[in-house]
């Protein structure tokens, strides 16, 4: 058997049972590698239940800084008998399978091209601990310790992490460290440590890219913090996986950062509403009344907010929605990732509507774009929908540190103060397009005793906000809304373009979490001699740069994580593009798309010179 040889470049996957405390232990594992200066990207693959079902934790270790999923597993650590058979199958030839050898392995499952490492975790716990709960919990720490020995992880780093985690509960530190030591010791005594797959301190292997300033953060926490920085004061929300932690983060930070020093009271208000309709209603009411407000939701919540989103579009109320996408339709796979709500969000609600979407790709962008979305909403007086996803929102990602420009000021858009109103000669018209950019001026309720009051409604009105059924006034208003959408192109974040270095007629277009593996795939192809320019879309409406990029290439791959190629459709629709130019690469089985599969699809397409869109079928055979 040829073993895989790899330093700081491999994929390890943990197979656990959920509710057994493994997530924290696995997190500590990933973080220890990160602290050694090596880029990691951990991914939690968890079931939609609370206890007793298989759950996996996949960690990509990549000195080169590839953070998307690669595809394939080099080391599998399995402490879940339920999934063991499949887990063994998933290991790459030459890889390792580490398992709990307390019970003998079913010999039929053995593979010759994989190295099996048995450690009697359960027995060790039975010997060491009396309490059932401790047995369960410390088992996780034991395997982390064993991995430290097997993979050459710096034990001191792990000890520090335990210290950090239990700060304030110091008595828990010693037993946890002890458990790790048990595992470490067992591994060193019984196996040839380290394995052929292992880590080295980045500094020691002389890597020039330094990640020491980088942070490890999940997108939802970043979005929650972005809302703090963006000045959100009101949040109405309703729990739903995978968006819940956006609001939880907002609340956690608000309790630290938004306490009024004078009174000790809150400079924010969070209401857990009765459902998503109410959550959006709360945001709309608050935004109408001049506060910055936001909510977060996922799939079904987006559908339920659709009527209210139409109101906010037509009544021109700024409001921010963080939509953390999951696998649909309907309840779908609530704990799996996808990018399937593009059309539902862009055209949410009946009638002629269009909404501004932002597509963050990293936690840093979740932070930046959430903060920015409040400026955009106020500036454009329309809902802004941040299109995150489960992979980005709920997993830790390595990211450059968060930054804030203290010179920057909130842009509250076109709001007239009492003074402005006093200085006005003409009659105030809420929907008058004074500046010819489609964006009218508004006033907050209570501003002025005599001037500036108006009636907001979801029904047709004239430029003075008076109800009307006059067809001309209606059309005039609808055309202005289109004009405003045109204006939006100037304000939304521009796409990121990376040229291949040499001239090429092939481009690739993607957004959000599809970006990382795409960049990696493009590099793979570049190594093979195929040059591909890339554009990462960061917002809808698409601006001129996007159109230009597509115009400049004969073929553009559009890579996304849904069945129907939704972003591609939106592009064709809104930029009036010839469809055959855009080649779909789709992946939507609920796990993040991998660099290998993207590279394969592109390679296929480029070599066979297909121009019709292809759909990558992940389904080989269906298990019944």
């Amino acid at each position, binding site marked *: 058997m040829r073993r895989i040889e790899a330093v700081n470049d491999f994929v390890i996957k943990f197979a656990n049972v959920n509710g057994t405390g493994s997530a924290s232990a696995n997190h500590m594992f990933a973080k220890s590698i990160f602290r050694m200066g090596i880029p990691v990207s951990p991914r939690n693959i968890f079931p939609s239940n609370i206890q007793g079902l298989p759950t996996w934790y996949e960690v990509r270790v990549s000195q080169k800084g590839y953070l998307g999923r690669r595809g394939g597993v080099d080391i599998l650590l399995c402490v879940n008998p339920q999934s063991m058979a499949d887990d063994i199958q998933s290991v790459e030839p030459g890889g390792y399978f580490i398992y709990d050898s307390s019970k003998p392995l079913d010999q039929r499952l053995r593979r010759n091209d994989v190295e099996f490492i048995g450690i009697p975790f359960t027995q060790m716990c039975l010997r060491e601990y009396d309490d059932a709960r401790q047995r369960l919990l410390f088992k996780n720490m034991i395997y982390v310790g064993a991995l430290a020995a097997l993979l050459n992880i710096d034990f001191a780093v792990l000890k520090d992490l335990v210290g950090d985690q239990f700060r304030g509960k110091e008595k828990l530190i010693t037993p946890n460290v002890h458990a790790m030591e048990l595992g470490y010791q067992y591994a060193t005594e019984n196996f040839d440590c380290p394995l052929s797959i292992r880590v080295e301190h980045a500094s020691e292997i002389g890597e020039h890219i330094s990640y020491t300033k980088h942070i490890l953060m999940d997108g939802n926490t970043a979005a929650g913090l972005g809302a703090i920085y963006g*000045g959100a*004061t009101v949040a109405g929300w309703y729990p739903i996986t995978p968006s819940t932690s956006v609001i939880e983060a907002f609340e956690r930070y608000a309790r630290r950062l938004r306490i009024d020093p004078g009174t000790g009271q809150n400079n924010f208000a969070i209401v857990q509403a009765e459902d998503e*309709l109410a959550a959006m209603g709360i945001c709309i*009411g608050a*935004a109408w009344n001049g506060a910055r407000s936001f909510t977060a939701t996922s799939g079904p919540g987006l559908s339920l907010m659709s009527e209210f989103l139409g109101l906010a579009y037509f009544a021109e109320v700024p409001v921010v929605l963080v939509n953390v996408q999951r696998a649909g339709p309907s309840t779908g796979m609530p704990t799996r990732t996808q990018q399937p709500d593009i059309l539902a969000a862009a055209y949410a609600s009946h009638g002629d509507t269009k909404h501004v979407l932002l597509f963050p790709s990293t936690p840093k962008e979740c932070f930046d774009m959430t903060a920015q979305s409040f400026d955009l909403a106020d500036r454009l007086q329309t809902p802004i929908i941040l299109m995150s996803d489960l992979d980005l929102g709920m997993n830790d990602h390595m990211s450059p540190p968060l930054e804030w420009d203290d010179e920057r000021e*909130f842009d509250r858009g076109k709001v007239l103060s009492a003074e402005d109103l006093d200085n006005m000669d003409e009659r105030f018209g809420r929907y008058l397009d004074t500046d010819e950019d489609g964006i009218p001026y508004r006033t907050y309720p209570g501003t002025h005793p005599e001037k500036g009051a108006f009636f907001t409604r979801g029904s047709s009105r004239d430029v003075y906000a008076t109800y009307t059924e006059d067809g001309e006034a209606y059309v005039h208003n609808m055309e202005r809304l289109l004009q405003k959408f045109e204006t939006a192109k100037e304000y939304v974040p521009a796409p990121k373009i990376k040229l291949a270095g040499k001239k090429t007629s092939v481009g690739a277009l993607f957004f959000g979490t599809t970006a990382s593996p795409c960049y990696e795939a493009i590099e793979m192809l570049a190594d093979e001699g195929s040059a591909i320019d890339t554009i990462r879309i960061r917002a809808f409406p698409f601006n001129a740069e996007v159109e230009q990029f597509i115009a400049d290439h004969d073929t553009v791959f559009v890579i996304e994580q849904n069945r129907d190629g939704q972003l591609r459709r939106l592009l064709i629709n809104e930029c009036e593009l010839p469809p055959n130019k855009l080649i779909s690469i789709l992946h939507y089985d609920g796990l993040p798309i991998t660099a290998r599969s993207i590279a394969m699809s592109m390679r296929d397409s480029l070599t066979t010179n297909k121009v019709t869109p292809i759909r990558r079928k992940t389904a080989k055979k269906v298990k019944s």
Partner: protein
Amino acid sequence: MSYSKPKFRHPDLPKNELGLSKTDYEGAISTLCAGCGHDSISAAILNACFEMSIEPHRVAKLSGIGCSSKSPAYFLGKSHGFNSVHGRMPSVATGANLANRDLIYIGISGDGDTASIGVGQFMHVVRRNLDMLYMVENNGCYGLTKGQDSATSDLGSATKKGRPNMYEPIDLVALALRLGATFVARSFSGDKKQLEPLIKAAITHKGFALIDVISPCVTFNNTATSTKGYEYIRSHADNMEVDFVPMREEICTSYKAGTTQQVCMHDGSSVHLHKTAADFDIHDRQAAMEAVYDHKKEGRILTGLLYMAHDSEDLHKVLDTVPKPLNALREDELCPGSRFLNSINEGLR
């Protein structure tokens, strides 16, 4: 259109403490049917605000969808208003109030808007004890969509469109009492003497104040036991869109505390209103629930202020928000700036 502005305005119209006259509290001309109870309620709100010398621009008017929900356009033209979507005004009001605790919030809803599509939001806004006046203009039917049954009791008329209402009605007053509402009242649109003081009290109340106002729909809430004239019109419009709406007068009433009054509706049917007596204990929730229930059993509708909590903690108290309106917080109070971000970054390494 049932009430129109007087053409000529007397130069010395009575003024309130702010030096404003009633015309300063008017809104656009109503487009409701002549005699619609909802217009009487608009007038009562207007009067109450005038007499309380409320600055019109310190009021925010909110509503859902329906004839009733249109009415905020017809009073307090100097206030901002928000005519939102059907049944969801409570959430919009919640957000608005959280954004600026300094305004007075008047929500107007219909029985369809509140008891059918909006009953979930209604219940939850009661639980939040949001500081607002929540007025249900209750006509026991869907006016704007032409007369379907609503989920509230049949107010003064047993049948509409020929068939009896088939379901147990929802009594919003009883529901609110049950859910812990801190101010609960019931009145009749045509009873100014009762309604105006109730509105004043409700506006003064800190927390959620419900006034369920019986407000006859002159056009659709009609019974089979109707006058000859009415029957004529029915026949005329049989099996067609109701397209003839007779001009009606507003129904007014005035009666003493502790007495029962039979009020005759436009179609000849009647409701029996009973006003709480002077010795009614407005601080006993359980007693209020029983009184409502007992009167109902006897076919009477108990009106008046039915319950008011001794002390009431509104949502801002519960959420412990600062006294300053959230929409007035400055950037430096909201944005922690780069310094703090460094410490966050540190914690994530």
